[in-house]
């Protein structure tokens, strides 16, 4: 898991490029990838790859560098997902027990069910990633994007997160919150 290139096609490629190259909100595609996964879960937004000539590739080097973070994120995503009807045990297995690649010498032996489950989990993860990218794109999109706007949007996203965390700690409904003006 997270040891090969990952290519994003279609609008999400466009989005990820916009976020890195135009808005400069993130330095690398992998940053967008990781934040996207987080936000996707947080706001329960998933998306599928769309067919388009545009594409953006996250190279394996990046995954190697962010290996620990990605694995941690994967576990957080699977454990906190509410979309699947998986049991807690199933999710824990996906996070800590199941292996995602066939290894002849693995002890105990790797079952096919184990592999399938992991594959499904990864699809879920990536769907959250794509959903998160959409959210990020919505957050950062502007016809005239500049560093100031990017900063503002970044701060807004942080402030939203702050508000979200506060509301959860206070036990308040998100909808009841008044959004402050920036």
């Amino acid at each position, binding site marked *: 898991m997270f040891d090969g290139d990952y290519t994003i096609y279609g609008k999400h490629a466009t989005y990820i490029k916009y976020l890195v190259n135009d808005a400069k*909100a993130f330095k690398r595609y992998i*940053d967008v990838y990781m934040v996207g996964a987080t936000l996707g879960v947080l706001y329960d937004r998933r998306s599928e790859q769309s067919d388009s000539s545009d594409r953006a590739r996250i190279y394996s080097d990046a995954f190697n560098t962010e290996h620990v973070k990605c694995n941690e994120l994967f576990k*957080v995503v699977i454990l906190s997902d509410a979309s699947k009807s998986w049991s807690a045990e199933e999710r824990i297995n996906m996070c*800590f027990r199941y292996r995602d690649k066939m290894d002849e010498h693995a002890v105990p032996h790797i079952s096919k069910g184990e592999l399938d489950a992991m594959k499904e989990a990864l699809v879920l993860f990536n769907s959250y990633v794509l959903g998160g990218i959409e959210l990020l794109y919505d957050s950062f999109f502007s016809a005239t994007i500049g560093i100031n706007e990017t*900063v503002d949007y970044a701060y807004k996203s*942080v402030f939203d997160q702050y508000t979200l965390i506060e509301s959860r700690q206070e036990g308040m409904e998100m909808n009841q919150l008044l959004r402050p003006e920036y």
Partner: protein
Amino acid sequence: MLIKSITLNNFRQFKGKQTLEFSSDPNKNVTVLLGDNTFGKTTILQAFNWCLYGLADFPKDSNPDFLLNLEVANEQAGIQQKFEVCVELNLFHKDTEYIVMRKQPYVDRAYGNWNALNDQLTVSYKEEGITKQVRNGEERNIINSILPHSLSGYFFFDTERVSDISTRKDLSEAVRGLLGLAAVGNARKHLGSRTLKGTAIGQWNASLDSVGDDRAREAQETIIRETEKKEELEGEIVNSDKELVSLNAQKEKIAEILRDNQSTAELQRQKQELEKQLDTENQALESCNRLFLDFYNNAAIIYFMQPLMDQAEQCLVNANVDDCGIRDMTESSIRDIIKRGSCICGALIEVDEEGKAGNNAYMHILDELKYLPPTHIGTAIQNFKQLLESDRRNSSQFYPTIEQKYKEIQKYRDTIAYLEENIARIEESIFGKENMSSFEADMNRIKAEIKRMNDKKERCNRDIGACESAIESAQKVYDSLVSASVRNKRLIAYIAYAEKICSWIDDTYAEKEQEMRGRLQERVNDIFSRMYHGERRVQIDKQYHVTLFAQINGKEVVTGESEGLKRVKNFAFIAGLVDLAKEKATLGKTVVDSVSWENEAYPLVMDAPFSNADETHIKNISSVLPEVANQVIMFVMEKDWQYAESVMEVRVGKYCKLKKLSESCTEIEN
């Protein structure tokens, strides 16, 4: 002129005050004073001369200058004694009675050493019974108008001393004077001619400023020229002033713009300052932005994950977690150790081919697998929880930090906005005023122009000063020349008049003189023939020298003259003169342009008239003289008088006699 009386006071031998009165009866017009030699006849004659003219001609051996009576001088001698000699003459002239008095004071410096002080002449006249004195200094003029000194010798006639009238120097002047021509002659002489500088015409001519008119014209031209120039210069000054006003207005306008420009420059400087600050702020902002985004990029993910972490942990609550296993030990790590064949402790790991059995070490390490994933996940979960915990700790300061950073950015943004606003305001206020160099060039040009104008004004003023002084000096010249010209005109008129008079005199005078000389000769011949018993006739030449001619064989020849004949001749001449002088004097060619004036009849005062004359001549002379002269005063010796008495007796109005008391004292017996 008639002589009424003469009073002598201590004059020579006439001691004390003695008066001699003369007859002024027209019919008995002869006064005879009898006296022998040295009795004082000549002294009386000289008393006339002294009284009138201050001159007395006494013989050189008789102390001629000392007039004081010697006896008086002796009697009155004493230091600082003063005594006066005085002669007073009473006469009628032109119906006015004149009193001429001359005093000669003497002072005795030492005993008997009398010094003469200045004599004093007083002339007074009677007007309506009141005696008036003529003005001081006028006495001489009055006397000369009564009887000119030059003629006195003919009327106070010392026969003995002036033996021959014809041997005298040129008598023409005297005769002309006597005949009333002297005034005209003097006038002619006074007028003179242009070449004679001392005469009136000569003086006037010399005073004529012949070049004055040219110079006046020149001066006038200068005045006109300089005045025009001055007006032109004044016009230039007025124009310059106008231009200066306009230039100063322009200067003020540009100066204002330049002053504004100074504030613009100040604003530009401020703007630059602000722009520099802005630049700094922008850089700082950029740097802040970058830091912010870096921070966001690195740390936001954990912050975003926070709520998920809680959810994930919730999910892990029921999981069986025991931490017997070695942390981070994985199944593959164990398998790698087995594959290597030696434990980390150094124990050999031996395993059979199937991998089901092995030595003790193998079994130990295989046992470890039970506590490792996938067999055992407790450690993994534990690890995960610790990781989350660590992340949570790490991100606890994320929000305050990023908020702080954002505030910082906002601060920068505010500062930048403020700076930009200021810059914009400055830009707005200095909009369109950026190019001041053309104004500065204009300013310099105007300043130069103003300086030029002021210089020009100054130059004009200087030139006006020069013009004014030129005008002034020319005016002075002109004024002086104009007055000179007026004088010239006057002088030319004078000269013209004078020359006209001169030519009139010249035309008539010579003729008149000749006529007068002819008449005089005629008259003298007439008288001479009455006096002289022979056949001779008189000729008077241009110098009024009288020559006697005798008729010999039908020819007139100059003859020798005896003393007696000379005396007769002289009397005839004088009688002729006096007779002619009585007549009205006229001058002019025709009756119309003639002028005439009354001549005064003159007395004859004669000293010893009959000496050297024989009886016949004395009788003849005696009969003629009272006829021709209006008053005859004769000082004669008794021996001569006896011949004349018989003829003249009827005409004698008064007899007097001199009585000689001593050599220094004579008395007049009236």
